[in-house]
């Protein structure tokens, strides 16, 4: 057993931190897109729109039922062979697409469960005051479902941040890809991957801190 090359590790930190913005960019854009898509699918699943429902269920089944890595390869290496509009897709776009579709499938089910958990009185009161279904969902039901779904959704966001590391398999030099390159140059694999592990861990911990504030905010109506 050899000693850790701490000096190398310390020197690697600023290099790798330079790639954090790209990782966060992919995760944030993916999360926002996935939230929108998942909310729409969840509302559809609650109201069961004929025909659309079959499509949404198939979508959720496929994107939950296949590995994220397989989906990324399908988008990046596969689709350009059959769809000409996809020919110029770059790795970052393919990653964001993959993360969005993959996680929206999971998130749709969490949001659907949260919507169904909102007390019946809330639906009836919205109807009784004469709200349209869109007003009822946007003003009353979804805000209350958000409170229930928030911890699970933050978990998916954490998973998504870590999932961006798969972009390196599409040739994107992001945090993981950059670490791989550095390690291949120095042969100090343990040190390099230890540093990148620490960077991911810290990012997630910062997020967990933000989560506590988010939950306090969402729970403000329920504090006595």
């Amino acid at each position, binding site marked *: 057993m050899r000693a850790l090359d701490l000096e190398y590790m310390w020197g690697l930190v600023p290099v790798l931190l330079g790639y954090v913005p790209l990782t966060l960019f992919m995760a944030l854009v993916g999360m926002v897109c996935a939230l929108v898509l998942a909310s729409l699918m969840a509302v559809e699943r609650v109201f069961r729109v004929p025909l659309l429902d079959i499509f949404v269920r198939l979508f959720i089944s496929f994107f939950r039922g296949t590995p994220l890595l397989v989906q990324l390869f399908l988008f990046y290496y596969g689709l350009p062979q059959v769809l000409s509009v996809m020919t110029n897709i770059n790795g970052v776009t393919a990653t964001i697409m993959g993360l969005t579709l993959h996680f929206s499938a999971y998130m749709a089910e969490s949001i659907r469960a949260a919507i169904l958990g909102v007390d019946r009185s809330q639906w*009836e009161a919205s109807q009784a*005051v004469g*709200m349209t279904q869109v007003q009822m969902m946007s003003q009353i039901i979804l805000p209350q479902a958000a409170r229930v779904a928030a911890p699970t959704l933050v978990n998916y966001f954490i998973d998504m941040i870590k999932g961006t590391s798969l972009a390196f398999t599409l040739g994107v030099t992001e945090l993981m890809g950059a670490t791989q390159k550095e390690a291949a140059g120095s042969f100090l694999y343990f040190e390099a991957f230890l540093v990148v592990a620490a960077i991911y861990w810290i990012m997630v911990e910062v997020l967990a801190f933000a989560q506590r504030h988010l939950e306090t905010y969402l729970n403000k109506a329920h504090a006595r």
Partner: protein
Amino acid sequence: MTSSSGISVSGLTKVFGTTTVLKDISIDIAPGERVVVIGPSGTGKSTLLRCLNFLDRPDSGTIRVGDLRIDAKTASGADILALRRRTSFVFQNYALFANKTARENISQALITVKSLSRSEANARADAILRETGLADKADVYPAALSGGQQQRVGIGRAMALDAELMLFDEPTSALDPEWVGEVLDLMRRVAEERQTMLIVTHEMQFAREIADRIIFMADGHIVEQGPPAQLLDLPQDDRTKAFLRRVG
């Protein structure tokens, strides 16, 4: 009564599974009339109210509120929305919007349904909160209000809509006894303004005070109806007599 004022319900029927809960109910209510529905539990009183604004969809019958007339069999989503916008509803379990403050509970529908500006809606909500004695609770969420306070906000929310018909579904039944008085007081004030009201309640003394007419229901039928003095003191039907003896 002209054909375009007041409320007219005709042939209303509601079936749950194999049980017919409402059997061919017909009621006419004059503008400003305050009608109280009494009767044993499980006789369709709440279902009647819920069918009048389609929280439960009636199987047949017609409902006319002012010049809006809809047929249960053919009512579209737009018809139902239009009907709900002419009525207001006070729930047994208050059903305040849990994610909205007391003020927002009242102003929400004014903004989304009546298209008032936020400041107009808030001003109206604050006026109602003062009227209901809850001015200091404007920014409080329902979870931090007592049952009586929640129900007063619930009534305030319904008052704000200026509906042609206010429906009250056992508004004091879920309350601790100590809060019943303040809720009935508020309802008395609404009644004094000659708001058209249809109230399901077990509060007989209250019914006697404020009702223009009391309807006694049993087994999905209207058994008999009349002014309080007549129905409560000189009931004709044996079922009415038996019920009034039980509730004392």
